[in-house]
């Protein structure tokens, strides 16, 4: 087991000069489960492949443990990787697939057999050992890929979107299995995904990347509650954070944001978290409101100026909660690479921002009606519209 360390690691493709990874500095601790997340093309897979040795490092230093591995071939790095498409050898049985690395390493036969059996037992593959991959289901293939990684007891596990080819139910199951395996083995794991939920639930820490640049590394909860910038705020969370360009009025001690005819008083506690909001009096800021920062009026006890009445365009009853979709007549804040709260991107109206509010499921909300919502403005996030930096 070993730590992985990126220092100023850059990957530049000579063909087009694009930097897939730009001066990445990241320390992954020994035994840590780190999730790399970001929109497609953000460089997360490239970073992973650099650890694996499948991509050359253009600049900077990459270390596994105490060893700088820039020039070390993949086979000598003592790492194991699970690919998105599993990359099982189609012509080998499950047993041979799992044992391949050990056979290459010329381990004694009894040891190979024993370790293969053990890994297979751990993943519940014992009865499939003599099958070919094509005779397995998607979940079983996934397990074989896991088994191939586990059997080597490597320094680092690398996972490249390993669950994206599974159906939703299996994905949930495998997710917890991977977490448990990592916990049991205590091996450092780097896990690439574009899936929010995997990112939030699996890792000790999550690293968010965008266009080759690391945006934030933090434990999932902190990532969610203290996004380092507008991109992280917009990217993390599902449904994603509502972003509204608002005018800041009121007084420095008790500001009020105005947007599309609504006035929302900002709780003083928000100023503790975003003190620089006080400097933006009379200016436009981007206010980030998580869907759960709304509640039906009466459900929570907030001052009168923290209520708004909105038109319900669509109410989605999810059982435990209701998602209220309501249009705000302001241009949407666009954050490149972040998911958009809309069913069909072609129909995005550039003059309307669709706000999603998540309220208690006990309420019956009719489509095309009005609803009075209370807002927890002490939880709001505030960003500089120009730089996207938080007003902290």
């Amino acid at each position: 087991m070993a730590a992985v360390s990126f220092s100023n690691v850059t990957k530049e493709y000579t063909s087009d000069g694009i930097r897939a990874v730009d001066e990445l500095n990241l320390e992954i601790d020994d035994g840590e489960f780190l999730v790399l997340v970001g929109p497609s093309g953000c460089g997360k897979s490239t970073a992973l492949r650099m650890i694996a040795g499948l991509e050359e490092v253009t600049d900077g230093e990459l270390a596994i443990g105490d060893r700088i591995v820039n020039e070390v071939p993949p086979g000598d790095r003592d790492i194991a990787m699970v690919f998105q498409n599993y990359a099982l050898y189609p012509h080998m049985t499950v047993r041979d697939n799992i044992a391949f690395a050990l056979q290459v390493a010329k381990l004694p036969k009894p040891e190979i057999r024993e370790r293969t059996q053990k890994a297979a037992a751990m993943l519940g593959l014992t009865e499939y050992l003599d099958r070919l991959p094509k005779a397995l289901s998607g979940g079983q293939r996934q397990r074989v890929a896991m088994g191939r990684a586990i059997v080597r007891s490597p320094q680092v596990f690398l996972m490249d979107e390993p669950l994206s080819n599974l159906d939703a139910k299996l994905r949930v199951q495998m997710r917890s299995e991977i977490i448990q395996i990592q916990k049991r083995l205590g091996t450092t794991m780097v896990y690439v995904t574009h899936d929010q939920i995997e990112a939030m639930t699996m890792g000790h820490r999550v690293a968010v990347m965008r266009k080759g640049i690391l945006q934030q590394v933090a434990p999932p909860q902190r990532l969610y509650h203290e996004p380092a910038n507008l991109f992280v705020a917009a990217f993390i969370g599902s449904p994603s954070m509502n972003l509204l360009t608002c005018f800041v009025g009121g007084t420095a001690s008790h500001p009020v944001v105005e947007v599309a005819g609504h006035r929302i008083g900002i709780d003083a506690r928000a100023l503790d978290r975003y003190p620089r909001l006080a400097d933006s009096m009379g200016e436009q800021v981007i206010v980030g409101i998580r869907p759960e920062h709304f509640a039906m009026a009466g459900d929570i006890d907030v001052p009168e100026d923290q209520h708004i009445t909105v038109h319900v365009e669509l109410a989605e009853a999810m059982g435990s909660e209701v998602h209220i979709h309501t249009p705000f007549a302001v241009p949407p804040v666009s954050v490149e690479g972040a998911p958009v709260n809309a069913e069909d991107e072609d129909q995005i109206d550039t003059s309307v921002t669709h706000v999603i509010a998540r309220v208690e499921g006990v309420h019956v909300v009719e489509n095309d009606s009005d609803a009075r919502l209370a807002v927890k403005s002490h939880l709001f996030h505030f960003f500089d519209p120009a730089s996207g930096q938080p007003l902290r």
Partner: protein
Amino acid sequence: MARVGAYAGLVLVAVVVVFPFVVALATSTKNNDDIFRYPPTLVPSEPQTVESDSLTNIDDAGNDVPVYRLTGIDGQYALVDNDVSVAEFRPIDDLERVIRRPLDDAAETGDTVTIDGEEEDVYEVSVDDVTLVVYRSRVTSGGLFVNLDDPTDERIELINLAEPLTRFGPRLENFPEVIQDKQLGRAVSNTVLVTIAVVLGQIITSVLGGYAFARIEFKGRSGLFLLYLGSVMVPFVVLIIPLFQLMLQAGWLDNLAALIIPWVFTAYGTFLMRQFFIGIPKELEEAALIDGASRSRILWKVMVPLARPAIATLATFGFLYAWNSFFWPLVIINSGNPDGRVLSLALATLGGRSSTDVNLVFAGAIIAMTPPILVFLFAQRYFVENSASSGLK
């Protein structure tokens, strides 16, 4: 309805295509007399015989005797003696009628009669218990026929007037005969040797070259590949003389090496393997790299097993070329020394030298034709099989 038409058309085409093969196969198993029989038949036949034992009144037991049908008489007759003296008698009052009897089967009366100005002896012959007065018009050689159903029914007839009966009888001796008597054995073993060497050589060079072109980055790769691929466009006739001179310099004239070495490098095969390797997901190789496998191990343990369909295709083409090639062997194996000949050459010589033994020529052709057909039938299933992606997703 359109379907029926289509099938009818296909069947027609199939029959037209297959017919020459059937003729060749039939001819190769006929005996030489059978080939020139009129009307020609597709089924090899041989004279029908019975064991003479079954005919009670024959002494020389143990021989098979041929069976005939006699003109105007029902039943089958065995020819038990093909060299009996036959006398032809004609009744004096009916000179058109001919009665054939063994020479001593007529009693001389001592009288004479004058026919056409010749004085002839007069005999008495009994036909169906009626005694006729006849003269002997001719003494010739004929056969003694016995009715198969009624051994007492014996007849003397002229053999050339009887119709021999035939039955299905392939003459498989043609094959060993052509191999031994016409020295085809050496040609067969040469061809097998050349073919195996060419096929194996082509597979090895194509796999190595195709893999390099598909997966190893090196300077000038695409240019080199284009050049290599371009060589497919150069017609063989252009290469004959330079290639011949090369072989001359190498001292390989009249040598099987000249049939092997130039043909183990194939641009087409390299192209085929490259295309197939490109289609194999890169992740498989990357997984093997991470598992610590070397390039050569990846190639032989991961890529090659997956490329079996492509290799089978390549091997089939290589086989068909090497087995059937005629022109290049004709040019390079030119001393007339039969030890260097391959099948195609040997067949050509056989056709020229032994054209009287048509059955043997065809037997040789069948020997030459069978392995390619078998190989094609066997390899055919690989053309459709593609297992490369089944382990993924």
